[in-house]
């Protein structure tokens, strides 16, 4: 191509530098036809012309970008105040983080924790807002970036107290000394430190938690590997350098030699110490009680396994603001701790006992005595009035063969504590070596005359399904005979099929041999007195197969939904209609759900 130059273009005319589109078009386009003529260019002239065109292109691009910036300035979103835009970015960050933590994706495909940073790539205005908002960066300093990236985030956080979170234990990152060093260097300005990973380097962690952390509010150290991750706090070190006046929440996994005497614990609101297994050096009960006594603001206390060593101490720790107490461990240790704790009667209790065959009847009786003392701590036999009590008996069921003596003793204690109508939620579960589900339940029933005042009963899947045991009529009768005030019942597949028969039947049939379908309401009794679970209002079924055949009626096979519908209708006719049926992860057709909707309100997750 021959390019003819009538006049050599100025290498840098003023309009080329201009970002003003009008100047650009006047200068560039208006004279364009005059620019090049028919004379062949020399090599040098050609290079100059090329440079000129390139400069024009650049100028055009700048002008183009300038127009885009002006366009953006007029966009409605850009008219929002900076603080609102910052809030939106912050919400995006929060949502992406929450989405990541709850996502069902495989670890490697989870949404990026820092996905929100994409907002800084949308336009210049957004980037400037984000970079000018330290709180956005301080809210979650990622330790899994390259160290330069982490440093950049910390720098952008400016003087705002920062949050370190390392939650990628399932994404293949290992906590390393560089990360520990980064935390250590910035601990004095750290508000939240949350570490959650698989492989632990105890030395690195210990180096962090013996340093002063004057702004630290939350310390969570969670480990994923049960056995290798036990680490001991050095006896000669000071927890957080004895300088963490803002510390309110502590969650520690597997840290033995917990410094109960540390003064930084005094303002705690929540303390959770979780061990995967008991260790050889549990704390002394006296030390624990003394520390708890000083924690005047404590609301949440979790002590799982490795409970303080039983001692003959008469000390009692008063925890006046406790909202929830979660204790798991050996039966004797649980009882021992309960005996020495004084908590408000509004506090809820999550108690899981490991009771082995080695536990003597005396130990069992001692526990229930302590339990009863705990519930009736004023000695007036006044029960906790409205507390939710989750009694997860764990391997207590592993007693295996019911021991009549024990059952007789156990029955005495809780009954007095709960007879005045406490609203109790019971969660029955067993995890370990119960070989016989029926005796398991028998044990529960014996222990838990608690059922007589239970409001909610949850029978977790492992007690009604995993061991292959399918509940029979007798077991439901065991529940029905006691649970006259039960309003909410949650259960799953193996227990649900027989349950549906019982919904419309009398509760005082005592023989498991009775043909339930032939049972009728007894004359002279009101529906509320004669019906099975007369107060039941809500039934929650999980993982129930509605396709299953539950009975034969002549030649026809009745399916679960048909039987359920018939029973619910009968119950309604008897004056005690079920108000709500919740279906979660059930195998059911939509048409069947629609049929059931004719007789009861259904909350269905839509899974078929």
């Amino acid at each position: 191509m021959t390019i003819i130059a009538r006049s050599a273009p100025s290498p840098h005319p003023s309009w080329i530098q201009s970002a003003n589109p009008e100047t650009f078009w006047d200068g560039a386009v208006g004279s364009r036809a005059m620019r090049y003529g028919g004379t062949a260019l020399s090599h040098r002239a050609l290079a100059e012309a090329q440079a000129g065109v390139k400069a024009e292109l650049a100028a055009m691009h700048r002008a183009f970008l300038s127009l885009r910036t002006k366009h953006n300035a007029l966009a409605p979103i850009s008219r929002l105040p900076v603080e609102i835009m910052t809030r939106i970015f912050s919400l995006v960050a929060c949502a992406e983080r929450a989405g990541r933590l709850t996502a069902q994706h495989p670890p490697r495909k989870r949404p990026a924790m820092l996905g929100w940073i994409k907002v800084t790539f949308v336009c210049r205005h957004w980037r400037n807002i984000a970079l000018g908002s330290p709180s956005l960066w301080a809210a979650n300093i990622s330790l899994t970036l390259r160290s330069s990236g982490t440093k950049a985030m910390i720098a952008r956080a400016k003087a705002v107290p920062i949050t370190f979170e390392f939650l990628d234990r399932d994404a293949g990152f290992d906590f390393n000394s560089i990360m520990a060093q980064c935390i250590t260097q910035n601990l004095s300005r750290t508000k939240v430190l949350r570490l959650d990973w698989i492989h632990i380097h105890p030395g690195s962690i210990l180096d962090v938690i013996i340093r002063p952390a004057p702004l630290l509010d939350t310390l969570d150290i969670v480990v994923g590997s049960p056995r290798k991750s036990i680490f001991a706090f050095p006896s000669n070190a000071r927890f957080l350098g004895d300088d963490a006046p803002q510390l309110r929440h502590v969650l520690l996994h597997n840290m033995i030699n917990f410094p109960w005497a540390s003064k930084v614990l005094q303002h705690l609101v929540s303390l959770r110490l979780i061990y995967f297994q008991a260790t050889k050096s549990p704390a002394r009960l006296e030390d624990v009680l003394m520390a708890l006594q000083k924690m005047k603001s404590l609301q949440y206390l979790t002590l799982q396994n490795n409970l303080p060593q039983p001692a003959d101490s008469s000390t009692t720790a008063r925890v006046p603001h406790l909202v929830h107490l979660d204790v798991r461990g050996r039966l004797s240790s649980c009882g021992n701790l309960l005996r020495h704790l004084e908590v408000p009667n509004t506090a809820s209790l999550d108690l899981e006992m490991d009771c082995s065959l080695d536990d003597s009847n005396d130990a069992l009786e001692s526990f229930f005595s302590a339990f009863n003392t705990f519930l009736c701590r004023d000695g007036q036999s006044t029960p906790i009035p409205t507390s939710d009590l989750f009694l997860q008996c764990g391997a207590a069921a592993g007693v295996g063969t019911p021991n009549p003596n024990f059952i007789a003793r156990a029955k005495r204690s809780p009954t007095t504590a709960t007879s005045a109508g406490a609203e109790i939620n019971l969660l029955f579960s067993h995890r370990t070596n119960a070989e016989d589900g029926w005796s398991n339940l028998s044990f529960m029933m014996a222990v838990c005359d608690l059922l007589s005042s239970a409001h909610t009963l949850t029978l977790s899947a492992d007690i009604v399904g995993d061991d292959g045991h399918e509940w029979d009529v007798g077991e439901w009768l065991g529940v029905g005979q006691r649970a006259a005030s039960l309003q909410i019942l949650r259960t799953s597949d193996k227990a649900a099929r027989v349950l549906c028969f019982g919904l419309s039947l009398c509760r005082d049939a005592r023989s498991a041999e009775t043909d339930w379908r032939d049972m009728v309401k007894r004359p002279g009794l009101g529906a509320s007195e004669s019906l099975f679970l007369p107060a039941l209002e809500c039934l929650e079924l999980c993982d129930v197969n509605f396709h299953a055949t539950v009975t034969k009626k002549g030649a026809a096979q009745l399916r679960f939904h048909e039987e359920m519908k018939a029973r619910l209708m009968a119950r309604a006719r008897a004056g005690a209609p079920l108000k709500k049926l919740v279906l979660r992860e059930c195998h059911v057709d939509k048409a069947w759900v629609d049929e059931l909707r004719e007789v009861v309100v259904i909350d269905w997750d839509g899974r078929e």
Partner: protein
Amino acid sequence: MPTIVSVDDSTVPGEGSSRLLLLVSSDNKHIVVEEDIMSRSRFISKQVEGFEATSQRHAILLPFSSFVLNKVIEYCSHYRGYYLLEDDPDAAPPGRSPVREWDQEFLDVDRNMLLRIIKAAHYLEIKSLVGSCARAIADMIRGKTTEEMREILGVENDFTPEEEHSPSSKCTG
């Protein structure tokens, strides 16, 4: 600050069983609303306090259309008498709280309307409505690519190539 014009008692009923406010939108629509409904707006509350100090009632001129104003009033009416945590600066927790079901339906409007509502809520200092709108906008863009975000909110990529590749630098000019 809004323009305040004096109104006579025949326009705005005075102290009686129900105290009313006269709000005037930018398109000059006069909207009478119970003071109690608008008490969620700190801005309006401050105006009313000013009225009480001077013993004079005024109409309050607002810089947004009656259409937007009516939406805000609808929101305030729905939550009349309810305590909303976000309106309490001392109690509002940081971070994200779930969008209330009613709010989701209420804010199911086009993008521009949503932006106008949030601006109005910000002006009127109704924190809970600002929060709900902000969450709705955040939900529109979270998990999206930058290109999708631009498309959704009507903005253009105006980075120079250098800026695009050095995200840590502020953009000037």
